[in-house]
């Protein structure tokens, strides 16, 4: 029961941390619940679909199918996060002001909600397919301890969800005028970490050059095999032994998102002339 709890908790936590940040970053956008729940359901459905096709996916592209698929959806999520950064740079300040005045969700942002729903779906799909396969294995083996393992898994889902809810509520404790600044950085780091992971996946299969397989080794300090290491990997792209290409993709994505936000958030030339 403990083993299954740990496996499921770890996967749910990794996805849940991303969901927690997305929840905090979309506070104040009206009618967000159906979009974000849609992302959750799409992610769960996608996880089941991927789990069902994993054999075919694995053997596709000369055995690199799993990695190519993972890298592709990670890149998609990075683009969606970039989209949100630009939208937020344009609307964040005005949103925070309106929320302080009225204390309610006032700004509509259907396009960015779609982008963020997609990010939730990708996060859940990636980690969820591993949980689905794990549970499928138990269901087909059907031995005596199946009940204990399922109970452990259910607890794992609940605990993982609780931590991500805690992260969301914790972020909401940040004063409104600062909240979107903090979530902006979290989103940028999240995107950078995802881009780095995608690059590492492709370089590991020798599809792109690695430019150094191990720039440094901090596994003695914090291993990506540990729970904290994994959580930091999901949140900010921590890697104990990064590849050159991974660091390059990380830095390039972070710089791009920061510059995009600055560019999109600059005062309009027209309004400058008017004032």
């Amino acid at each position: 029961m403990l083993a299954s709890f740990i496996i499921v908790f770890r996967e749910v936590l990794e996805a849940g941390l991303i969901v927690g940040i997305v929840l905090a970053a979309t506070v104040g956008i009206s009618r967000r619940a159906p979009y974000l729940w849609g992302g959750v359901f799409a992610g769960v459905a996608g996880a089941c679909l991927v789990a069902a096709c994993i054999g075919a996916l694995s053997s596709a592209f000369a055995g690199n199918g799993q990695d190519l698929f993972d890298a592709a959806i990670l890149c998609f999520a990075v683009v969606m996060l970039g989209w949100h950064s630009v939208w937020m740079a344009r609307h964040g300040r005005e949103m925070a002001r309106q929320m302080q005045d009225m204390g309610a969700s006032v700004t509509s942002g259907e396009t960015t909600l779609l982008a963020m729903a997609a990010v939730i779906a990708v996060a859940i799909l990636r980690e969820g397919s591993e949980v689905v396969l794990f549970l499928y294995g138990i269901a087909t083996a059907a031995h005596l301890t199946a009940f204990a393992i399922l109970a452990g898994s259910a607890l794992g889902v609940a605990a993982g969800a609780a931590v991500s809810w805690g992260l969301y509520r914790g972020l909401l404790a940040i004063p409104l005028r600062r909240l979107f600044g903090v979530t902006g950085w979290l989103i940028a780091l999240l995107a950078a970490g995802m881009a780095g992971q995608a690059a590492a996946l492709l370089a590991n299969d020798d599809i792109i050059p690695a430019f150094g397989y191990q720039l440094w080794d901090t596994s003695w300090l914090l291993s990506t095999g540990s729970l904290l290491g994994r959580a930091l990997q999901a949140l900010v792209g921590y890697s104990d032994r990064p590849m050159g290409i991974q660091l390059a993709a990380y830095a390039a994505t972070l710089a791009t998102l920061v510059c995009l936000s600055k560019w999109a958030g600059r005062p309009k030339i027209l309004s400058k002339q008017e004032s």
Partner: protein
Amino acid sequence: MAHDLRRKMIAAAAFACLAGPAGAAPPSVQLTLQDHKFTPDHVQVPVGGRFKILVTNLDSTPDEFESPALRVEKIVVPEQTITVFAGPLTPGMYAFYDDYHPETAHGVAEAK
């Protein structure tokens, strides 16, 4: 096989376009999972170069071949063989396991 050909073409393209790390075929080791145990559970792998690990799952349920130390993580469905790349390594012991059955399915790769 078509898969092999495609892999070689990708490798050749990567080498030609990007002067990447693809070169001579890297050495490989074979692991088999049966009754949720690795055979062999102690393998010798090269130091300082890239190598392949082939993992075959002979059980009736899916496994996830995983090793943070080797930086690999891949699902292996029943009756399937997957390939992962690892290295270059410094001399030492590198643990690997099946994430779905970590109590029984674990082993070490010894780089020397």
